[in-house]
């Protein structure tokens, strides 16, 4: 068990840090949250800089155009960019972390050549069309249907919780092609061009007041059969390959961000005198311990992934359960530090507190995660 970084890793970090110090001051100001074209341009511009500097697709395999970096290097990359305040992955998220890896793993040579380079260069943006209003936790119950018509699938239905739908070029879409088959066996993965006729995007306002997500309505949208990745009705398996791709690094940036938030909270509490309240101070101390442990758990999972060369799999559920709970606690504690000022949206932590309400819901509710942990890790039986 060793937490020191190798000479090579330290060099990687030093080079990256130097590059970030040089390039970040040159970046344009961040656009406003409602300026979607501006956000796209900002995010893809950053991706292009990463590409030019050789950091694009760091964790992608070499034969997909990536850098084939180790999980530890990827961890260092995410840690350093977050610390330096670099732009988030933003509009490139689905392309870099879901659709791209799926195509890399399951696509044909032609599909890889068509879709992967533009993602790495920041030329094309992807969004995700998985969830539906009636298929949330039970994702496999999705009902958006695709009917074969010549060289096209004709797709009708609706998707929800789609980020960046307004500005995306492509959508990784799950559709039902085998309505009579068991629900996991009738699903197909398609790459849908977002400029196809029949697509309507409607912004979805969240309780935080923002429109980070959209609903996407599909009315007889034609998607070429050539855009199918994997076999017809094999989309569930294809998707699962993507979902387990992350190698333990999924929350690196967020844990780093939480630790920085905690430090700022401590400074604020000291400045306001709230630090003198032992009840609050001890809560902050406990959170410091918890986030420290979560950082160590990240390193543990990354090391496991590095050693096995494979995917950490269900360990992600354990991490997400602990992390989402701790992060909600963090913002509740921030509210205690702020007192009545926690009611003001002008406090950054108040807005963050609102966003944090989704952490125990999005990407698998805590209830679903506990089922996964109990059944897949602990081997407890499924209920009747």
């Amino acid at each position, binding site marked *: 068990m060793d937490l020191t970084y190798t000479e090579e890793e330290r060099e990687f970090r030093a080079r990256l840090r130097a590059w970030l110090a040089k390039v970040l001051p040159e970046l344009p100001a961040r656009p406003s949250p409602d300026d979607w074209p501006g956000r796209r341009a900002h995010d893809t511009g950053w991706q292009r800089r990463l590409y030019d500097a050789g950091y694009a697709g760091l964790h992608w395999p070499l034969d997909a155009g990536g850098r084939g970096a180790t999980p530890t290097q990827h961890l260092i990359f995410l840690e350093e960019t977050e610390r330096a305040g670099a732009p988030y992955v933003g509009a490139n998220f689905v392309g870099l972390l879901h659709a791209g890896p799926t195509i890399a793993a399951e696509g044909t040579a032609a599909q890889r050549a068509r879709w992967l380079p533009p993602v790495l260069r920041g030329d094309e943006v992807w969004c995700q069309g998985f969830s539906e209003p009636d298929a949330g936790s039970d994702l496999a119950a999705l009902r958006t249907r695709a009917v074969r018509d010549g060289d096209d699938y004709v797709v009708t239905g609706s998707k929800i919780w789609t980020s960046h739908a307004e500005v995306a070029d492509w959508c990784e879409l799950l559709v039902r092609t085998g309505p009579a088959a068991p629900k996991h066996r009738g699903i197909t993965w398609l790459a849908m061009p977002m400029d196809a006729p029949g697509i309507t995007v409607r912004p979805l306002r969240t309780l935080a007041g923002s429109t980070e997500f959209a609903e996407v309505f599909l009315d007889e949208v034609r998607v070429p059969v050539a855009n199918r990745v994997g076999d017809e009705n094999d989309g569930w398996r294809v998707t699962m390959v993507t979902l387990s791709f992350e190698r333990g690094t999924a929350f690196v940036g967020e844990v780093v961000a939480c630790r920085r938030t*905690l430090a*700022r909270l401590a400074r604020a509490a000291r400045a306001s005198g709230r630090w003198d309240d032992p009840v609050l101070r001890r809560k902050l101390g406990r959170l410091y311990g918890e986030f420290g442990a979560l950082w160590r758990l990240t390193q543990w999972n990354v090391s496991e992934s590095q050693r096995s060369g494979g995917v950490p799999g269900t360990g992600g559920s354990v991490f997400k359960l602990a992390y989402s709970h701790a992060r909600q606690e963090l913002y509740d504690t921030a509210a205690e530090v702020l007192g009545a000022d926690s009611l003001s949206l002008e406090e950054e932590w108040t807005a963050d507190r609102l966003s944090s309400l989704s952490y125990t819901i999005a990407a698998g509710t805590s209830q679903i995660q506990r089922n996964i*942990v109990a059944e897949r890790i602990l081997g407890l039986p499924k209920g009747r």
Partner: protein
Amino acid sequence: MDFQPTRDQRDLRAGVRELLAGRYGRDALRAAVDGGSAVDRELWRELGAAGFFALRLPEAEGGVGLGLPEAVLVFEEAGRALLPGPLVATHLAAGAVPGAAAGTAVVTAFDLGERGGPLVSYLAEADAVLGAAGLPPGEPVRSADPLTPLHRVTGGGPADVSAYREAGALLTAALQVGSALRTLELAVRYAGEREQFGQPIGAFQAVKHLCAGMLVRAEVARTAVYAAAVTAQAADAADGQAADGQDADGEAAEAAEAAEVAGEIAAAKLLADEAAVRNARDCLQVHGGMGFTWEADVHLHLKRAWVRAEQWVTAAEAEEALAAELSRTATGGEAR
């Protein structure tokens, strides 16, 4: 960086597990409980021979020459097996108290409560008290844990154990993690076997989710314990390298590193105490009425976890230590 255990470390852990399974299995545990014999001198010597106490003593001094990372793996196994006796104190005494390293002496310590003492465990069984000149007089006290006899010391006064506090807390946290993992296993096994309403109770979400919560707690605590051990070991090694005439920057860096280690150990103890106590409680809940019987092992884990939570560093102390470290890093230094 490779935070996963090495093959040697995994082999060491497996070896200790095997030794304890053979030498202190369930029958031995229950015999000790029924017989009220907390320290088995013969087993103590066997542990000594296996290097349990001399694990971190340099080879030059007759020890095994390993470090804290190996020690926490070994203590985790002892916690899993519910091995009784002043394991941590005797381990800490190796090299300082004659016979401790070899397991021919039983050494206890004033490690209970916020400042240590006047309650002390295993006084009647001990040959020495860590950091004290002799064995103090004491009155026996009925202990909640049948395998942790207690005395209230009536003279002599507590010894100063501050030099041992961090390692003591860390190794105790490792014992807690072992217990937390063990009660999880017991709960999962029972949940898979016990049937009610026509199915194993483990098929009910309420039971499933209790077990999932236990795993999360145990995994987070375990990682914290391992990380603290690795960090403390690295700081020790750095201390060893730094020669006498180091400059002010070097001293400041060393002080920062020491503070960081203290924080990691406080977190490890806090999270491990909580994991052990809460997992034992949830294990008991999963067992239902059976968990409330003397015959089930779960109460032994709970009672021992309560004892260990009072040893070396309490939750209140750990939270305050972590707050101090947060304040330090927030206003000056930075956490790694």
